[in-house]
């Protein structure tokens, strides 16, 4: 399998008056055709900025300072805006968190969908309309002809997110970046949306990056997981490995704080402290001040290394869980 997207050494920094915010600071990953990669992390860990960097939508004072983003063999990090604009919505599509906000409230669904097609392809309006209708059918929207005539406020949240997914798949993209697409939905709708997304990636061979803070969501969906903390990937590997046998203390903490049927009546595990101030990151390992396993060795920056079939950035990984 060749990789659709290869990101290596990506650094996106924001040059604010208060100092340089290293929102993304050396991120590597790749996504293959038909593969779903879960990008997991807390708020402010840089996962969304990673997504926007791929699309080239970083606004000043932010900018990609280093690294390469290779999409189907083309370098995007240094590509001109016109080339990126041609890719956006066409070969690389995005799905956002809040479906209430991402559809224009004053335009009908058909207008917005047809526009998404005609922006990239020279097709007649009737053809674009037919394709929009089929796309709505594909994501499980009943009587798509009627929905096309509707305004966004006439649809429920789940419906709108389906429309957003349909728009993302309209131009048969090679890569979809989904930025917390199910966070604003209730659990049953969440499950349906995840199911649809998974089905579509399998059918179309689209690669997908699923950005979320919810490990439970990616556990059932992603093929591989990258866990981000303070702009860096701290653990990366196959979903089963990472979920069942986490190595990094941060991943262990995240997993421990998910309520399960077994933890009923017990206190939930909590990662101590707060996410670090991105302007004043601790020296060495950014997670060390909150880590139970931290030692003096953590004062120096841990390099990313291969361990037990995955990549990890930690001085004291919990190898016991792997060996037992």
């Amino acid at each position, binding site marked *: 399998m060749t990789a659709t997207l290869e990101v290596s050494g990506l650094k996106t920094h924001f040059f604010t008056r208060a100092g340089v915010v290293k929102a993304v600071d050396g991120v590597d990953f790749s996504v293959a055709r038909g593969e779903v990669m879960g990008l997991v992390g807390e708020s402010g860990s840089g996962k969304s900025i990673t997504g926007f960097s791929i*699309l080239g*939508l970083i606004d000043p004072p932010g900018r990609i300072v280093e690294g390469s983003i290779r999409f189907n063999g083309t370098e995007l990090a240094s590509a001109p805006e016109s080339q990126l*604009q*041609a*890719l*956006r*919505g*066409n070969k690389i*599509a*995005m799905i*956002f968190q*809040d479906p209430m*906000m*991402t*559809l*224009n*409230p*004053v*335009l009908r669904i058909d207008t917005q969908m047809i*526009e*998404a097609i005609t*922006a*990239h392809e020279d097709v007649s309006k009737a053809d674009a309309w037919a394709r929009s209708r089929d796309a709505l059918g594909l994501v*499980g*929207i*009943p*009587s798509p002809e*009627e929905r096309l*005539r*509707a*305004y966004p406020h*006439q*649809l*429920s949240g*789940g*419906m709108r997110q389906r429309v*957003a997914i349909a*728009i993302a798949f309209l131009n048969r993209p090679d890569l979809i970046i989904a930025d917390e697409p199910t966070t604003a939905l209730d659990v*049953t709708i969440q499950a*349906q949306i995840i*199911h649809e997304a998974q089905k579509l990636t399998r059918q179309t061979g689209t690669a997908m990056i699923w950005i979320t803070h919810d490990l439970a969501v990616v556990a059932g969906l992603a093929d591989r997981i990258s866990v981000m903390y303070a702009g860096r990937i701290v653990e990366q590997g196959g979903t089963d490995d990472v979920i069942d046998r986490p190595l990094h203390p941060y991943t262990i903490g995240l997993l421990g704080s998910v309520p399960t049927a077994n933890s009923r009546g017990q206190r939930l595990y909590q990662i101590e402290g707060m996410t670090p101030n991105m302007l004043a990151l601790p020296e060495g390992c950014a997670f060390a001040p909150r880590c139970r396993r931290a030692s003096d060795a953590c004062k120096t920056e841990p390099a990313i290394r291969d361990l037990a079939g995955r990549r990890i950035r930690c001085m004291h990984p919990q190898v016991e869980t792997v060996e037992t």
Partner: protein
Amino acid sequence: MSEVASQVAAEVPASRVETPFQRFRSEFFESKIATAALILLVTIVTLALLAPIITPQNPYDLGQVDVLDARLAPGEKAFAGYTMWLGSDGAGRDLYSAILYGLRISLSVGVTAGLIALVIGMAIGLLAAYIGGRTENIIMRIVDLQLSFPAALVALMLVAMLGKGIDKIVLALVVAQWAYYARTVRGTALVERRKEYVEAAQCLGLSNARIVFRHILPNCLAPLIVVGTVQTASAISLEATLSFLGVGLPQTEPSLGVLIANGFEYMLSGRYWISVFPGLALLFTVVSINLVGDQLRDVLNPRLKK
């Protein structure tokens, strides 16, 4: 899953899909005052449009104006035989005819100036909001500077420099008013461009022009419509002010302001009607536009919804 889907489908029957315009219309007519104002406004506009058909005299045609009819009181008969229900002015013009013809001029000057100012102000405001940075600063400081002078003063100075005539007064009104539109549009556009649908549109690879005009602009229309109606009313009264002061329209094209000014000298001799009737016509026009504008603001502003 298909069960869920059919439930959702049942929620929104196709026949009851209400367009935003239909909802807006039913909310607008909830207020009796606004409905009455709209009816009054439509009546005034219709009368003005039909003036050549329904008036007994063309006040611009000197052949139809008889000096012997000068200063007739309301209800007296003209030399030509018809009744002058609102009297006549110092030159023998039938006031009823003169007011309707004057309304045509006042309304067209106000609406033309309002529309041109709206288009120019909207374009500049959108540009400022979307480009941002130094361009925005320069544009908005010019707007601030202009708005710190009363509109009447700006228009008065311009007309004094340019001279009389419809085109010149329209130009003066546009210059005096574009800044209101620019400020309004920029304010709303700044809010709108931060919204996620703009980001989503960027992610769809749409061009900047398309995002600005197709996505941001329609979302800025509500406040623009409100400012547009209020500013049109103020353009009409501003034109009347300038004409009253003698720097607006010439005597040969009498707008309401000119008519009021003509009758002013007769006020003390008891011939009130020459000024009062054109004045009432102006009052009703401006008040009805403003009442309609108020209701538009209430309907279009989501924060004022119950």
